[in-house]
């Protein structure tokens, strides 16, 4: 197993610099399932109310106007569901959804199988939204070891993130051109063993060992894919409409102008508005929570109000459960991607690879299946040399192991690859190496996440009947390091 600590430390410092840039979630990414229910929605709405109140109080208008804005914000025409959930839900629990983002097994962060030092035998269908960063040390498809750094991302996402857009806003800006461009992504790999200072990452043209472009032909992990339109309508009609109706009915009991107004609730609302509007910035959160979870909870409720409050709690739980189930279905959708890669050779024609990637998640998403089919040609014709270099087929199954919430999801991957090399390989300097023949490779890989950091450490063991350059069987262990900035950005810039 080759572990070049010096090089790894060097690129770790690069990763630290990169982490200060924002990035967004990828187009068509599976939406992380949130374990929320009514409690999760109550927490989100309380946090939102507190944030808006603080923004109002920090504003530049007069004190009287601030108080007026705060009271408007607290009116039942905006907060009925919050009031109902505060009455119904007894406890709030914290959520940690970044662990779920890390648990994804469908992202290709590192270089493809053909990159020097890659730990991936099969190329995955998804990419990070803005920028992924990978350092992988070892060798897989080539008998020459090296350290490759891969940057992979989406141009639309980068532009939007640099423009300080929110994490998902960059994903949901639905202009036609943007949606098409979002299906396009790119990658560039740098081999640090090349160039004037081998072992040092320079990021220059000499170290650029490959670049690639991808286009999503089919992405059924996009919640807005047209095949889901009927299901969305059914969800909104069956789960959203009852909630909206009951909330509208309950609002009457807080409304002093309505015949159904409940004097106790109207009195509480007036008192709560006055207390929160008068609270200092530093006391907003405690005042809001005191009003919602202490004062409101002590208001005697009529049977009609109790019934409506229970209905809202049940409807919100039903809404959340159905939404989570639906999004899980979407997250297991099929992806079909085309990828073009230019592998830059030293003193030899470049190799142009054309690859189809398909990914699906059968068995209710318990595993992910990935298939690749590709062929490679020389970038230009040479006398006496067949331009077609090779074609190959590969497949991989990924299965998450262990608890996502406790340790992060360790992923076990099993893969196989068959490659037929139909033409000898041109070596640097123009020498021809006898490489024709068949290559068969099997690999077992364990990917260990460093919880909450976006960092993953892939450890793989590979058996090959030969390598591209040496016709002898090879058993090899590789260890790598990948860094997906999506995870960090989702925390820094929600």
């Amino acid at each position: 197993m080759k572990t070049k600590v010096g090089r790894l430390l060097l690129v770790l410092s690069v990763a630290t610099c990169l982490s200060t840039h924002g990035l967004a979630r990828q187009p068509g990414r599976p939406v992380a399932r949130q374990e929320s229910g009514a409690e999760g929605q109550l927490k989100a709405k309380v946090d939102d109310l507190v944030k808006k109140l603080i923004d109002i109080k920090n504003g530049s208008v007069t004190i009287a106007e601030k108080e007026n804005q705060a009271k408007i914000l607290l009116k039942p025409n905006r907060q009925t569901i919050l009031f109902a959930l505060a009455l119904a839900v007894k406890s709030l629990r914290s959520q940690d959804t970044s662990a779920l983002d890390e648990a994804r097994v469908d992202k290709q962060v590192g270089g493809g199988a053909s990159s020097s030092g890659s730990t991936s035998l099969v190329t995955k269908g998804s990419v990070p939204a803005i920028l992924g960063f990978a350092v992988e040390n070892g060798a897989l498809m080539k008998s020459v070891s090296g350290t490759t750094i891969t940057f992979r991302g989406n141009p639309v996402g980068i532009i939007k993130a640099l423009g300080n857009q929110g994490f998902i806003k960059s994903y949901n800006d639905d202009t036609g051109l943007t949606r098409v461009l979002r299906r396009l992504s790119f990658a560039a790999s740098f081999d640090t063993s090349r160039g004037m200072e081998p072992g040092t990452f320079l990021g220059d043209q000499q170290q650029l060992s490959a670049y690639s472009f991808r286009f999503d032909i089919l992405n059924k992990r996009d919640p807005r894919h047209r095949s889901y339109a009927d299901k969305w309508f059914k969800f909104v009609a069956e789960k959203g409409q009852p909630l909206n109706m009951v909330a509208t009915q309950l609002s009457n009991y807080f409304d002093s102008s309505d015949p159904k107004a409940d004097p106790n609730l109207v009195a509480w609302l007036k008192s709560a508005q006055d207390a929160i509007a008068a609270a200092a910035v530093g006391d907003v959160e405690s005042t809001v929570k005191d009003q919602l979870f202490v004062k409101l909870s002590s208001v005697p409720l009529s049977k009609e109000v109790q019934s409506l409050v229970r209905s809202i709690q049940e409807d919100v739980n039903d809404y959340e459960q159905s939404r989570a189930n639906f999004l899980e279905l979407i997250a297991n959708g099929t992806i079909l991607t085309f990828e073009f890669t230019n592998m830059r050779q030293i003193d030899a024609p470049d190799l142009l690879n054309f690859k189809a990637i398909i990914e699906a998640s059968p068995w209710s998403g318990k595993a992910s299946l990935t298939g690749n089919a590709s062929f490679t040609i020389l970038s230009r014709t040479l006398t006496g040399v067949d331009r077609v270099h090779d074609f190959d087929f590969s497949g991989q199954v990924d299965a998450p192991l262990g608890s996502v919430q406790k340790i992060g999801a360790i992923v076990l991957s099993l893969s196989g690859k068959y490659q037929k090399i139909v033409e000898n390989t041109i070596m640097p300097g123009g020498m021809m190496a006898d490489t024709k023949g068949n290559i068969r490779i099997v690999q077992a890989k364990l990917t260990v996440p460093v919880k909450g950091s976006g960092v993953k450490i892939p450890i793989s063991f590979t058996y090959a009947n030969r390598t591209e350059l040496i016709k002898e069987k090879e058993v090899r262990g590789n260890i790598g390091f990948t860094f997906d900035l999506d995870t960090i950005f989702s925390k820094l810039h929600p």
Partner: protein
Amino acid sequence: MRMIEGDPLDIQCDLDEDITVVVTKSIGIHEFVNYSLDGSSSPGPVSKDTPVKFKVNKRRKLGVLINYADSSGGSFEIKATGSGGGDVPPFADDQASGEHFDQFIYTFNIP
């Protein structure tokens, strides 16, 4: 029509005024928006680009539920107009992190 005390959701109308409500801007919301007039099942889910129309022959409430597509980053703007003229500014909101839906209620008051 005019808003009452600076609240674009609290509107003073003329008797029998025809009201139109439509989502004018949106990012990251589902295609269909839920509408409930006076707590009923009508008009129900309506495409976000389709205006909802009704007459104000009494004090009426229109509940609106916006369904967000993801867990953050969504936003919308909705506007009510009346046949009697006047101008009420649109109501807009940003999705809070982890919030999956947003519910609010228009109140149309008559003299």
